[in-house]
Each structure stands twice: as structure tokens, then as C-alpha cells.
């Protein structure tokens, strides 16, 4: 635990959010850098059945579980960094807002074999959040399968959003990517006027 036995002792906490589509490597990344095993918490949502046969009585309710994990890294005696992995489903946006509130930056993980799975996360940080973000390509086989500019194009990522590649299992590489996140936040918040947000979808 964070040592805080004396109420005078004041620890500073900071937070970086790790987002990305299903299976992009969020949990792997958090474990790589966390000093505790990532804590996985689950919340669930009752979801109405699909309305394919809408005039039937609403018996087809289902429960969707969303999992988020978080890890912790003590960076100095009085400085703790928390990493929060967001749940994959973007439609539970209130949860995303909650996790992102007060974050110093975000890393959106993409798996180049399934870029589409990370669209929702990229959209969220582009349109619905003020947290600066960096997109990170998780090199599942230790190598880059796609050139970064091809990834940028496929994600139609604005040139002001940094893109990097790393192995999510490797602590040093993950730390390097997080340095990039923090540096981007420093740059972004030092000068005004990020790119204009896009027209959002109705929530």
C-alpha cells in the first residue's frame, strides 16, 4: 500500500489511461509496468436485447460484463502512477469518462491485425475527451508488421497525434511509450488549440 500512516504525509498520485480494442494488449501492458499484479475489477450492465424482433415482449435481456484493470507504479517516495485499462466496449461511455477524468494522458493500443477493434477508442479520445493521447502499435510478434504511416492512414489519425510501436510485454519499452505519452501531454497542454473535434454521435 501507499505509505500514508501519518495524515501529514502527502503522496501525489497521477494517472495514465490505457485504452484499445478487444485483445489489444491492455492487461499485458499494465502487468508489464505495474509493481502489483494488475487488479481486475468487473462491472456489469443489463442490456436490452437486440430489436430484431422488437414487437415481441422484452424477454431477451442480457448482461454485459465490462472489465477494467489497473496497476500501480511507485515512481518516487511520494509519487505514485496509476495505470487504468479501460473496458473494451465504448458504448459504456460513462465508465470511460469516469476512468479518464483527471488523467495526465492516454495510450491507445492497437493490434495491426485488428485495427477496427480500436476505432472506438481512437474516436473517443479524438471527439469526446480532452485527455491528450498517443496511439501505440503493440508488436505482437516482436516486430512491426505494418509501417507506422500506413497505420496512421488506416486510422485516419491527425498528424498531431503521435504514433509509436513497442512490445507490450517488455517493461522498458512500455515505460518508453509512457514517457512519450507524458511528453505529448506536456506539448499539447503547453500550446493552445488542439485540432477541432469532429461532430459527435448522439449519446
Amino acid at each position, binding site marked *: 500500500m501507499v505509505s500514508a500512516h501519518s495524515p501529514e504525509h502527502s503522496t501525489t498520485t497521477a494517472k495514465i489511461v490505457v485504452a484499445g480494442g478487444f485483445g489489444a494488449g491492455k492487461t499485458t501492458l499494465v502487468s508489464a509496468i505495474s509493481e502489483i499484479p494488475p487488479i481486475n475489477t468487473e*462491472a456489469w450492465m*443489463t*442490456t436490452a436485447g437486440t430489436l430484431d424482433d*422488437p414487437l415481441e415482449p422484452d424477454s431477451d435481456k442480457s448482461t454485459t460484463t465490462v472489465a477494467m484493470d489497473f496497476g500501480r507504479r511507485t515512481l518516487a517516495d511520494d509519487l505514485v502512477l496509476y495505470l487504468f485499462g479501460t473496458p473494451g466496449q465504448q458504448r459504456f*461511455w*460513462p465508465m470511460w469518462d469516469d476512468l479518464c477524468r483527471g488523467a495526465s494522458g492516454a495510450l491507445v493500443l492497437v493490434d495491426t491485425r485488428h485495427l477496427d477493434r480500436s476505432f472506438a477508442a481512437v474516436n473517443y479520445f479524438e471527439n469526446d475527451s480532452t485527455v491528450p493521447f498517443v496511439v501505440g502499435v503493440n508488436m505482437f510478434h516482436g516486430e512491426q508488421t505494418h509501417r507506422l504511416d500506413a497505420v496512421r492512414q488506416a486510422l485516419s489519425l491527425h498528424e498531431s497525434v503521435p504514433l509509436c510501436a513497442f512490445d507490450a510485454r517488455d517493461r522498458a519499452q512500455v515505460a518508453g511509450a509512457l514517457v512519450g505519452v507524458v511528453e505529448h501531454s506536456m506539448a499539447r497542454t503547453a500550446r493552445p488549440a488542439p485540432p*477541432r*473535434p469532429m461532430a459527435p454521435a448522439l449519446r
Partner: protein
Amino acid sequence: MPHILIVGAGQSGLQLGLNLLAAGMDVTIMSARTPEEIRGGSPTSTQCMFQPALQIERDLGLNFWEEQCPKLTAQRYNLGLPPDGYPDARQTTGEAAPPWLRTEVTPFTRAIRFTGPWEHYTQSVDQRIKMSSWLAEFENRGGTVIYQGVMTSDLDSLTALGRYDLTIVAAGKGELVGLFDRDASRSPYDRPQRALSCIYTRGMTFDPEYQDWAVSFANIAGVGEFFNMPGLTVDGDGMQPCNILLFAGFPEGPLGFHAWRERLSPTEHLDRIVRAMREYVPWEADLAGDIEITDPRPSLIGGYTPTVRHPIGHLPSGGLVLGMGDVVVANDPITGQGANNAAHSAHIYARHIIDNADGRYDEAWMQATFDDYWNYAKHPTVFTNAMLGQEPPEHVGRILAAAQAGHEAGKPVIAARIAYGYTTPSDLGWMLDPDEANKYLAEVAPEFATPAPANP
């Protein structure tokens, strides 16, 4: 005094919270967003509110913007037709191309126009201003606010905790509605009926013929509806008057969902709205020569299925929650009833909660509270759903013609009755039923009414 938990800080949740706080209750609101996030975010509505709902806010001392906000004194109706007359609905198959994908663009003409004056004005205060301020106000007045994106699992454990005597879910159209069963008998639609594309603008000029603030509305044959609603919106840290423009497109029409699928920057979005105005409501485009967006996030695009739900949510651990506002009755925005409904629901719920402060908020009480609200909400719901047809029924055509004749003769009785109906939908029976309509037209305005066709 009972402890009340409200989930959702919108029109209904905050109004109820502030109302109960004034009655001395212990109230906690869980809000997915902070005041700064609400204010700095995208708009959530066009939020025109009519006299009865505005009066509820006044009585609670919550009408903070009454003087700054444009006072809309009338409702202007227009019917836009393509140059070659009413389109044959049967000919439209597939998705019609929006104006910006066509080389040929023919402006529509205004076939019908009239103005219905309101005795009491209508106002639209941007919910970004209202909800961010009300939320801060709620906290200042001693309410507890917890910033939390609430999941069903939270509701399950919160109701089991026993901390609150009553939990109200006022989370709008968000995912929490999944907890409440759709009431199929009151929900005729199973998919969104209109593609909504809304933008906040400034710089629009007055219609030279009127020179005052009014809601301007158009039915556009084969396309959908257009609204121009003056309101009060954000301006950096301050506020400014604005014109809120909204197209509600038939799903397959030229302004259907496909027309807005691309991700657009605010200025690109405005550009498309203006192009659509030039074709479908050119008389409005004439007033929009110098318009610009009001803020960095001025747009709202989407659509939702009009739905009435059963009001009580049952949690697996046995807890019960009561839905309010859009959670239980979500009407399509084309009649501008939702925020008004939300205000009425919060008003009615507050009365029941306060009256029952010494009793139990059990299932029977919940159902009775909703039923009381439904006695109000059934009128706007039936009205709105009737208006979602893509072609006006024959008798409505005659009402509109008579309203125009009266308008031209300087006697806008029919137009005023229609405008009044928007504020008080229980009065609209005469318009929804062909026989009632004939009777009314024959009574009040025989000189304007064209006779009903003989029954076949």
C-alpha cells in the same frame, strides 16, 4: 427525512434534486459528468421549453436565464414542396442522395406558411449552460454529488446497501435504460424515425417580415423537418444568443442517416447544413448569409427509437429503481416535447415523493407515481408518434390550409390553437382525430375551412 438517490444530472434529475432539496430532503445525485465537462462538451438537445414547463422552473427559482434568453413569441409553420409538387412516396426506394452528392439542386418552394402566436413565450437555454449551473447550484445548496458513470452493477449494490430510501434513474437515453422493459403497447416504433443533424450558430438575421424571435418550423415533403430555434448558448466563459438549426430527416430520404455518416468537422457540418437549407428551406437560407458556429463543439448528430418503458427496474439482489424522464418516455424530438416531459415528470415525481415522506417508496407507490405522470405524458407521446408519419393525413392537410387562410386574413385562431397544443398537448385531440378536426374547423373558422371530402 428520506434519503433519495438520483442517477443522471439532466433536466429531470437535477430539477427533481433541487426540488427535493428545497423540501429539506437529503439528496444525492450521481452524475456521469462534471459541470466543466457538461459545459465544455457537445450540445445535447435543442431544448425548447414551453410556458407550463418554464413555469415549473420559475416556481422553483431555477429560471436563472429568463432575461438573457431570447423570448420566442410565436411558432411559424412552413411547408416546403419540390418544384414539381408533392413527391410520390412510393417512388422513393433505397437511399436518396443528399444535396452535396448531386450536381442538380432545385430549391423547394414554400407552399404553406402561417404563424401561431403564443400567449406566453417559449425559451431554449442550452442544456450545457443549464445543467452545468444547476449541478453546481445543487452542490451549493447542500446536495451531495458523486461523479460516477453508473453501471447496473452499481445500482444493484447501491439498492442493497440500504443507504437510500428511493433510487431514481434519470439517465436519459444512456445504456442504463436496458434495465427497464420496453412497453410494446405504448411503443409503436422499433427503430429511429428521424436522422437528427443539429448545429448551434450565430449571425442569422431576422425574417424581415416579422422582426422578432420565434420558432420556425418546416415540413419538407419527402425529406423530413427543419427547425430554427433561437436560444441562449455558451460563448467561451460567457453566453450568447444563437440560432439552433436542426434537420430531422426521413431515414431513407436525402437527409437520412447515410447523409451524416461521415465524420465532419464543425465547419464542414455547418457547410452541409447550409447547403441543405438552400435546397429545402431556401427562405431560411436567405437569413443565413453570415452564419458561423458558436463554439468548438456545436454539433449533435444521431437518432434514437421513440420508446415508452415500464417504470420499475428490478435488480438481481432485489432492489427496485424508478425511471424518470427520457428513461421511461422518450419521444422523438420533432415535436419538441422531451425536455418539457422531463420537467413535468420531475415535477410530478417530486410531489409524490414529498407527499409520501413518511411512508415507503415501494413498488405500488412507484407504479402509481409513474401512472400519474403517464396521464400527462400519454398526450405528447401520442401526438409525437402521430407526427412521425412521412405524409400528413388528409385532414391535417385541411387544418394547415385553413390555418394559412386564417393567417392571411389576419385571424390566426387555428394557428394559435396549434401553437398552444405544443405547449399543452392534452389539447391536441381535435387535431389528431379527423372527425374532431372537421367539427372544430366548422365551428371556429368555417370561412377558412375547405370542406371535408365526402366519405367513400
